[in-house]
């Protein structure tokens, strides 16, 4: 670690910044894809369900690295579309991790009690309102823990872009390795960097999960009165039900 000069550190830190940007934009795209595809998979039209299901299977079925190669090398030759490396990377990561995310969205939507949907129908909510006012607010706290895992996978996936010459952390490590002629220090450093990024993301998602769960009155982790009061209603209902079952 002694012969890592300031300039080389700067190279690595710039790489970390690119990794953060890549993760951020790919997450935005991936989340958008996940919501659209995930909701489309619960659509009443068979055709929409089929198309979104096919998207999910195709992008989940192939390898993210192969997809990235395809975006970088086949798209320009075959279609004449030359994307900036950074955006081609975001596109490849967002599309493939969005396909994984759509399963999370679909699962969480399916986990909302059907009676909630039925209540929405009874109150003659439009399908859009049923989704945005009733189902999604209850479903989305369920999505956060698996989304956290996926986010870490996405962060790890961003390292792939270094093969395409995008100057991310792993690419910086390659340059530093060439400059110093030593591999062990620099690769140890960047592994720790990735780990710290993953740790920060996980912590952030925990906070988000707490807020989301508190918002629908589940598992009050904070000693806030407002949360407790809202949570007490379903708890009492449950206690009542179990008493009835136990007594009969």
């Amino acid at each position, binding site marked *: 670690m002694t012969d890592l000069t300031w300039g080389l550190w700067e190279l690595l830190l710039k790489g970390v910044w690119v990794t953060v940007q890549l993760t951020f934009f790919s997450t935005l795209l991936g989340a958008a894809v996940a919501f659209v595809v995930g909701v489309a998979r619960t659509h009443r039209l068979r055709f929409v369900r089929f198309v979104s299901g096919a998207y999910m299977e195709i992008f989940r079925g192939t390898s993210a690295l192969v997809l990235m190669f395809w975006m970088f090398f086949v798209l320009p030759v075959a279609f004449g579309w030359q994307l900036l490396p950074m955006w081609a990377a975001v596109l490849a990561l967002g599309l493939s991790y969005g396909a994984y995310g759509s399963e999370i969205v679909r699962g969480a939507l399916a986990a909302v009690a059907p009676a909630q949907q039925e209540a929405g129908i009874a109150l003659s909510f439009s399908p859009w309102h049923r989704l945005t006012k009733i189902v999604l607010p209850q479903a989305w706290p369920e999505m956060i823990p698996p989304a956290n895992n996926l986010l870490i996978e996405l962060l790890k996936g961003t390292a792939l872009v270094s093969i395409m010459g995008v100057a991310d952390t792993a690419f910086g490590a390659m340059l530093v390795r060439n400059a110093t002629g030593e591999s062990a220090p620099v*690769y140890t450093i960047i592994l720790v960097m990735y780990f710290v990024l993953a740790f920060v993301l996980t912590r952030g998602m925990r906070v988000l999960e707490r807020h989301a769960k508190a918002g629908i009155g589940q598992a009050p982790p904070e000693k806030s009165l407002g949360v407790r009061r809202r949570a007490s209603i379903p708890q009492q209902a449950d206690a009542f039900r179990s008493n009835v079952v136990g007594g009969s």
Partner: protein
Amino acid sequence: MQWDWSAVADFMPRFWDGVLLTLQALVLGSLIAFALGLVWALAQRSSLKIVSWPVTVVTEFIRNTPLLVQLFFLYFVLPEWNVTFSALVTGVIGLGLHYSTYTAEVYRAGIDGVPVGQWEACTALSLPRTRTWQSVILPQAIRRVVPALGNYVIAMLKDSPMIATIGALEMLGQARQFSAETFQPTEPITVIGIAFILIAYPASLLMRALERRLVH
């Protein structure tokens, strides 16, 4: 868009070589991941803090860092320590080690899922510890987690192209080499992309079927 079937035909012999190497890496990597994952899972349950703590830290670290960087680490750093493996062996070790941290979680969940009564029955029958694990706990735990393990094999298949970056000529490696020689990237990369779907999709259907049979 131009599509050249003769390029596909030219690529085919190499493609099959690539498939063979991918499957080799997958089988060997899975064996390492299954075996090592069980070791991690058992070590994490150890009552000795000096065993469980380091194993937890190491597996968390490996799971939260990119496989690609780990492969580079193995490929570049091991020779500095005078340990030299071929690209394929390095790749298999990297894949196996990385995925062992996932299978460890799977085994852990499976072991936790064995009802307490089974443990108590073993105590009541005064079975020795090894027999408890071998004949009672693990058979029930592993049966439940077979589909989850299978899903990680599929995930490993989709990560296996990464070993092309350290020079193993699996499917992606063959496609890269072919397109570098002929300047025709479209056909080989599209072919291997479809090949991944053709392998992964039926495999995931199989895992879903297994899940219905074994878990429920």
